[in-house]
């Protein structure tokens, strides 16, 4: 009961004034309240063999500096829980610095254990100017205050330990984040080195197909074309991996600028036309002009729209239609890409934005990263993206909606731990 009460008091007092102030108040009040000459709190060293001065009142710097107190039999008694009075400091053999005590004018000293939850923290000493005794009540009272001091010291240790742990955790997070960046850089470098030979091989294949090196048989032509397609797929995968690792590592600042939504969408429509026209797909666009500007990445926003259109184009057959619409709706810009493709099975809709997810795992087309890249780009711009299939009000096709707040400040590092 006493310990709990003292613990509660120590907690609120520490919170109000801080550990050091509480300890000062204790030694000063004890000295004055018991009409003593001074009071000191001596803290036990980690190895339990010495006592160090922590805080005191009414004691000269010379006395404090007399030297370290070794834990001897008498102090061991105190640490075991007993209060020990030495009535004549100058002549009692148990005193380690009798000359200093005499010089300081100390007659007697009462040593009381500073208990805490986890053990004894040290010794509280009350020094009297002349030889005196302490009544049982006085000793009981001092014992309580010493225990309060012990609890305060324990609280301080706990706080220091927590600060140290927090510091360690911070260092660990920063080390992991450095490692992550190095790893992402490594992925980009590997990807880059994979691309160069593939590009050279594909260049050769296309020149052979062109006939610059002589005629090819029909079979050779089919296989060369298939090889080009497979290499294209591999190059696309590498590009997506590079993009993902760039998005994960955070964008470089030259990429982040004030961006006009209208310009992004208009230029995306141009790129999209290059995809849809050769396939005989109609491209409809309904883009509100003067859409608000945002601070973000023009490259990534264009990539976002292009990824969605190229996905749509992959699944929309000749004669079908893809629509790009964009409007300001309240404080957001809403961009919609709708196609008349074969749609997405309802059970896989929740998964389509996951890394490496492919609706048809057997398909050689697509990397399974396009939509996960889109999701990252939208989220970097504090927006949301989702898909509906069949497109609302229709029985075919897919509608992808993105809502990005206007005037958004792009959070340039995506998915970085806090």
């Amino acid at each position, binding site marked *: 009961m006493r310990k709990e009460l003292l613990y509660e008091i120590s907690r609120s007092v520490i919170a109000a004034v801080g550990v050091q102030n509480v300890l000062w108040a204790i030694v000063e009040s004890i000295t004055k309240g018991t009409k003593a000459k001074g009071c000191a709190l001596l803290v036990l060293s980690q190895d339990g063999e010495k006592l160090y001065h922590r805080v005191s009142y009414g004691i000269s710097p010379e006395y404090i500096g007399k030297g370290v107190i070794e834990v001897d039999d008498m102090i061991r008694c105190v640490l075991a829980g007993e209060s020990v009075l030495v009535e004549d400091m100058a002549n009692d053999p148990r005193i380690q610095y009798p000359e200093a005590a005499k010089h300081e004018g100390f007659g007697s000293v009462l040593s009381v254990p500073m208990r805490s939850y986890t053990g004894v923290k040290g010794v509280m000493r009350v020094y009297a100017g002349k030889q005196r005794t302490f009544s049982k009540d006085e000793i009981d009272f001092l014992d309580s205050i010493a225990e309060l001091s012990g609890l305060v010291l324990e609280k301080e240790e706990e706080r220091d330990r927590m600060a140290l742990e927090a510091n360690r955790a911070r260092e660990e997070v920063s080390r992991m984040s450095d490692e992550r960046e190095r790893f992402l850089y490594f992925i980009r470098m590997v990807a880059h080195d994979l691309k160069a030979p593939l590009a050279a091989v594909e260049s050769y294949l296309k020149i052979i197909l062109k006939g610059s090196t002589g005629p090819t048989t029909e079979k050779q032509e089919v296989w060369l074309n298939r090889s080009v397609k497979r290499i294209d797929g591999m190059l696309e995968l590498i590009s997506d991996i590079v993009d993902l690792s760039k998005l994960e590592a955070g964008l470089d600042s030259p990429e982040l600028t004030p961006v006009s939504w209208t310009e992004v969408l208009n230029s995306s429509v141009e*790129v999209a036309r290059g995809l849809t026209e050769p396939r005989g797909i109609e491209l409809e666009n309904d883009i509100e002009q003067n859409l608000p500007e945002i601070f973000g990445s023009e490259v990534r926003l264009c990539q976002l729209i292009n990824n969605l259109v190229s996905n749509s184009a992959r699944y929309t057959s000749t004669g079908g239609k893809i629509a790009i619409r964009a409007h300001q709706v309240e404080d957001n810009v809403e961009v919609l890409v709708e196609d008349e493709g074969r749609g997405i099975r309802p059970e896989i809709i929740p998964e389509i934005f996951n890394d490496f997810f492919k609706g048809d795992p057997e398909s050689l087309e697509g990397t399974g990263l396009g939509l996960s890249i889109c999701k990252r780009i939208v989220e970097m711009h504090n927006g949301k993206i989702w898909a509906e299939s069949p497109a609302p009000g229709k029985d075919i096709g897919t509608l992808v909606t993105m809502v990005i707040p206007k005037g958004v400040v792009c959070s340039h590092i995506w998915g970085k731990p806090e």
Partner: protein
Amino acid sequence: MPKILVMDDDPDIIDALDTLLGGEGYEVITAHDGEEGLAKIREEYPDMIILDMLMPRLDGYGVYKALHDPQWSEWKDIPIVILTSVSEDVSHRRYELETGVRMEVAAYIEKPIDPDVILEGVRSILEA
């Protein structure tokens, strides 16, 4: 026939372009890095330069900058086609935005080389 200087550190890209452009009757000269390329420009006075960006010793941007130095004024009007390695990706604009490098050049052409795209590009630039 017009003379085209191809500058690329990838010997296979050089070989491919040499075969393709040579097959069309162009005179092709080659260099494997920017420094060798600048020396060839001085000696050969090409009608056009096809320039790779990532090269040892002196990269494509270094060559571009050198040609805009007053001491190279004699060669400054040779049209340049930048051959972007696939990592520099999709478009001219994207390249500029991602790298912060802006160049006034005749065209950007991507690797892997598409013979029709490069032949059409070369033809239209030389006719201009």
